[in-house]
């Protein structure tokens, strides 16, 4: 294809996006669009799969049968999200094995928040309330993103995430209406998860490398800082309902802007965790690699068995 032809296709492509048309897997797309989407969708899928680990950590110790069942269902939902996000990614011409390899080798990133440990039951509440809350703010605009398979997957993901968020808040509410020990547990969880949740919405706009192009492709509709402000404004009144204190002495409602002003985020910590030196980075990847490696014989057996069955079918047909 000549450069001119490619340029022509690109113009048609950009015009389709500008008209809010969906791009489907079989449509022509610029290589950069494909690569950016593989990166973002797989990063999202990896986050779901790694995100199963900190919550999975409390399934065996959930404090009641009702909570155990709800947590099992939640972690199962996350596995489901991972599954259809990987599938959406595969439509772009990359296999799930390759994507796993990228995760295991450290080449692919996942949400850094999951590199923090879950130390008490209240962390199950805080993750639902804050982490899923921040995720929804990130993800709702993606329901209208330009790439069809991703947009459709996000519609379902967002519905389930919003259920998880309410469930997390309800765990916190129960703790806050409980004994002093329970309320302390809830406050401690908020103290540990608040700042990482703010960081989850990404680096400040000045430092965000992908923003401009992503905005054009509708992979992003609001800047990181706008999303963060939205999250804070939405969450502070919820903390008030719980009777918990947000661990930020500079947090203050600004009458002029109608939003909350907040203190400085420790971006050094953010980059440290992103670069692999958070409290649980190594454990999380080791757990994924171990699951994959220990399961190799099982997957091999399934393939071998399927091949034998196929062979038998052919023999019978002859």
């Amino acid at each position, binding site marked *: 294809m000549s450069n001119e032809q490619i340029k022509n296709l690109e113009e048609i492509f950009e015009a389709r996006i500008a008209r809010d048309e969906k791009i489907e897997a079989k449509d022509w797309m610029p290589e950069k669009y494909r690569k950016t989407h593989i990166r973002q969708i797989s990063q999202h899928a990896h986050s779901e799969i790694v995100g199963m*680990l900190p919550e999975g950590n409390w399934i065996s110790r959930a*404090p*009641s*049968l009702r909570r155990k069942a709800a947590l*099992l269902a939640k972690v199962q939902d996350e596995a489901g999200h991972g599954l259809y996000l990987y599938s959406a990614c595969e439509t772009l011409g990359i296999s799930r094995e390759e994507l796993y390899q990228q995760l295991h080798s450290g080449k692919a990133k996942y949400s850094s928040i999951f590199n923090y440990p879950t130390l008490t039951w209240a962390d199950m509440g805080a993750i639902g309330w804050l982490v899923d809350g921040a995720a929804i703010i990130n993800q709702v605009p993606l329901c209208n993103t330009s790439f069809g398979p991703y947009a459709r997957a996000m519609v379902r993901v967002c519905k389930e995430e919003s259920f998880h968020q309410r469930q997390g808040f309800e765990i916190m509410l129960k703790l806050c209406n409980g*004994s002093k020990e329970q309320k302390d547990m809830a406050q401690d969880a908020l103290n540990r998860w608040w700042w990482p949740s703010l960081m989850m919405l990404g680096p400040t706009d000045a430092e965000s490398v992908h923003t401009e192009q992503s905005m054009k492709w509708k992979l992003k509709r609001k800047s990181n800082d706008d999303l963060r402000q939205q999250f804070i404004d939405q969450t502070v009144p919820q903390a008030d309902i719980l009777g918990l204190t947000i661990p930020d002495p500079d947090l203050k409602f600004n009458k002029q802007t109608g939003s909350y002003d907040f203190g400085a985020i420790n971006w050094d910590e953010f980059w440290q965790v992103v670069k692999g030196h958070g409290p649980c980075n190594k454990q999380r990847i080791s757990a994924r690699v171990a699951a994959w490696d220990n399961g190799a014989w*099982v997957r091999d*057996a399934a393939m*071998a068995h*399927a091949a034998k069955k196929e062979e038998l079918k052919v023999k019978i047909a002859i």
Partner: protein
Amino acid sequence: MKSEHLYNYILGIADNSLILGQRLGELCGHGPSLETDIAGTNISLDLIGQTRSYYQYAAKISGENKTEDDIAFLRLERGYKNVLLVEQPNTHFGYVMGRQYLFDVFHLLLLQELQFSKDQTLAAIAKKGIKEVSYHKRFSGDWIKRLGDGTPESTAKMQEAIDDLWPYTQELFDMTDADTAMAQEGIGVDVSKLKESYYKQVKTLLTQATLEVPQSTYFSRGGKNGVHSEHMGYLLADLQYMQRTYPNMEW
């Protein structure tokens, strides 16, 4: 208490679901593939759901001010009535599927009888469970076939699991006092009568899976009377951790 036998009978069934559900829950996020992870979690969820229905009923008939969680979390190890089979650890995926299948075949046979119980509540729980457990059995049975008739490595691993788990199968058919009393009243199932069909089905599947049927005639038992394996204490330490550390609180 309205009926001590009925109470114990319900726990005898429900404890198996609780402990197996707990074991499967430990694996969540660590399975050999995303699909098996989802399925394992799903089975765990079904079992915990069934457990809740049984315990809620047991709590109601206990006549004391008990809740499902008191029954689930606040007994001593000797008070749990599950069979030894379900508390066996997740040594590897072959053990997980082996344990599952060896229990599922029994479980389905049990529920298929229990649905005709004179006790309406038990009959209803059983009826609902049949659909779920049929799926569990199909899932675990399919995996035994895949692993048994897969690669030489998987055949060896699956055989190892079946050989190790086999001694725990006979206990499934032991009748406790509560079993006998409830069977006589038409409420419970005479599990000893399920034995023949059970071994027939299991042996057929093992043969299909190109595995050998273990010949050992030595069997372990004790769980139904509260005498468990060394694994059980650790399982309960996890299960009961929150309720023991923070007594009398709501979650």
